[in-house]
């Protein structure tokens, strides 16, 4: 049995040893065995609108330049001059065809080619001029750009497995493609990164931890009758350690302040157009809530009428940094966008009513793990014995932990058996001919 995961199918009970959250040796193994060997999210293509737009990002501890080159191709470079190592780009974002190292003046294009070096005659005629280095792999799916530092990793679609379908769901919310809005939430948390992974699709904690938020929603709406909708939900294993907690039809709009009639009408009209394009059953799914973790550290949550993309960066065993963006339809009217943003910001981020509660909960967990000698295990068993698992169960976390355990210890645990998903959660995306597309020929 793994020293970190106790997966007892007879009781049944699933426990995680708290040393997984505190041990520096585990943290080093995670860097090597997980973050150096996974596909990791770096950003969304819509963050780079024009040729030579760039963003600087940290992924797996590496400083990276996420750029669109002069020809429009997405590029990712290590943010370090191949000469002596200084960072080429020291701004969070901008636009530049050429990036010049401020240390010795070597200059490179966004395509990674060296374009000039001061006093090059001192290097001799046969000197091989280095270009920028990059990660082993860069690929994107529906605008979500991933990198991997593993030359031998499977291709991105294979890696994403069932998570592709849920990226499709959030990407299909606009007929013209979704875009990441300008502005970023950046915050930190004095806790192990995996605690936020767990928290990100943990439906069980919502009512107790976020009481404040729900009191606000009840006050704004007059009532909140979410019981039936929340009960009809599923936690789903998407393969390769990815999992989602998915709500049923209509669950996407039960939280947050209610939209105005005009904004609601605009939203409904868009959904009607999408029904004609992709089918009723797909749009019913699209109109549900979803909290997904793409292993190991990408979170996509569609709740409170807004999609959050969250990237979790482990810094040390007891400290993480979090970056989050909102994905929204670019063709939305100003008033609907305002109400969407209001709901988004009321819930998410350092100034929201929910994120600070989560940070507080996770930081107290981490502080309490100082007593791991006396209290060695955390329990993640909820729903193990049930034929179906809901978002308030902990199947989704167990899915993550089994993959984590496999990569860290080599121990492969059998998948958990539950009843097949009902038709609602299996409805496919259709490509229907609409009047417009027929007219367009």
């Amino acid at each position, binding site marked *: 049995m793994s020293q970190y995961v106790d997966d007892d199918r007879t009781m049944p009970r699933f426990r995680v040893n708290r040393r997984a959250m505190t041990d520096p040796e585990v943290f080093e193994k995670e860097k090597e065995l997980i973050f150096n060997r996974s596909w990791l999210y770096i950003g969304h293509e819509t963050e780079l609108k024009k040729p030579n737009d760039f963003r600087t990002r940290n992924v797996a501890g590496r400083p990276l330049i996420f750029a669109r080159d002069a020809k429009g191709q997405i590029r990712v470079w290590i943010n370090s001059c191949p000469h002596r190592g200084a960072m080429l780009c020291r701004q969070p974002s901008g*636009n530049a065809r050429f990036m010049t190292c401020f240390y010795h003046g070597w*200059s490179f294009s966004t395509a990674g080619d060296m*374009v000039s070096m001061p006093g*090059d*005659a001192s*290097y001799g005629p046969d*000197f091989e*001029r280095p270009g920028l280095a990059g990660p082993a792999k860069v690929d994107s799916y529906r605008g979500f750009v991933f990198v991997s530092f593993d030359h031998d990793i499977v291709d991105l679609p294979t890696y994403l497995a069932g998570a592709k379908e849920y990226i499709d769901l959030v990407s299909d919310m606009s007929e013209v493609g979704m875009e990441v809005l300008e502005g970023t939430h950046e915050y930190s948390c004095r806790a192990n990164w995996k605690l936020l992974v767990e928290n990100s699709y943990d439906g069980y904690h919502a009512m107790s931890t976020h009481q404040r938020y729900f009191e606000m929603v009840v006050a704004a709406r007059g009532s909140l009758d979410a019981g039936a909708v929340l009960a009809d939900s599923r936690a789903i294993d998407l393969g390769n350690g990815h999992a989602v907690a998915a709500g049923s039809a209509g669950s996407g709009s039960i939280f947050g302040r209610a939209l105005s009639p005009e904004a609601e009408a605009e939203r409904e009209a868009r959904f009607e157009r999408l029904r004609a394009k992709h089918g009723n059953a797909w749009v019913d799914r699209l109109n549900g809530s979803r909290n997904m973790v793409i292993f190991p550290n990408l979170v996509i949550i569609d709740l409170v009428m807004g999609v959050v993309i969250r990237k979790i960066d482990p810094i040390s065993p007891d400290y993480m940094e979090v970056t989050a963006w909102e994905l929204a339809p670019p063709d939305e009217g100003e008033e609907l966008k305002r109400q969407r943003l209001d709901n988004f910001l009321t819930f998410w981020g350092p100034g929201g009513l929910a994120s600070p509660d989560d940070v507080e909960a996770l930081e107290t967990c981490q502080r309490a793990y100082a007593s791991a000698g006396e209290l060695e295990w955390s329990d993640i068993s909820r729903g193990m014995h049930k034929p179906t698992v809901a978002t308030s169960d902990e199947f989704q976390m167990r899915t993550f932990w089994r993959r984590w355990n496999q990569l860290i210890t080599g121990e492969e645990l059998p998948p958990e058996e539950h009843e097949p998903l009902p038709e609602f959660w299996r409805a496919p995306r259709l490509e229907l001919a609409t009047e417009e597309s027929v007219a367009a020929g």
Partner: protein
Amino acid sequence: MATAVRIEPDVTEVPSGGRSLEVATVALGGVPRGAVVLLSGAGGLRHVEVVDAMNELAEHGYESVAADLGPAEDDDAALEHLRTLLDRLAARGWDLDQIGVVGYGSGGRVALLAAAAMELGAAVSVRPVLPAGLDARPVDPVRTAWLGLFGALDERTPPGSLAAFGAALAASSPVFTQVVSYPGVTGEFVHDGLHPLTHAAAYDSWQRTVEWLNARVVPRPTPLARAWHERLAHRERLSA
């Protein structure tokens, strides 16, 4: 301590658009980094300021040609003068993407027209004299990355109109554009001054201008760089 060297440009009369245009040139030895067309005119730089700017561009490795276009002419005539200056640089071996155009006053208007008409290395308009009713006009997209620097108290380009213009230009253009409005100053900031806001705007606008050029104007390759690119191309041909 090094002694500051001031280069006096060569000045020649050149036929352009049916008249004679006075063109100042600062040519550099070695392998200059790039070239700049410096345009002035109504509301633009004074003669001595043009020479100052050409010297400062030289410090950053840029050759330059400059002309005062005088009172605003129609767009076609102004672009004809620009082409005359670009031809002068082409004669010294400069490609369009190795050239930046920096314009002041009505010269700034020409820099914007040039950005819409051709693909240059970069374009900067400092206090450009733009048509009235700016935000109500359809905005022509630009093909060259364009930077516009304005004084917020300039009555010809009020901040509201300017913001609308900047947003429309960004939305319509396939390349990056940026509008900067300096608070508390009129367009006279181009001449620098003792008032802190004026001096700050003048200092910042020059800094932004040079950085805009450095980030976009394609550097002229040195002989060794050219040989390196030829070796790379040869290897690619062999591997193909």
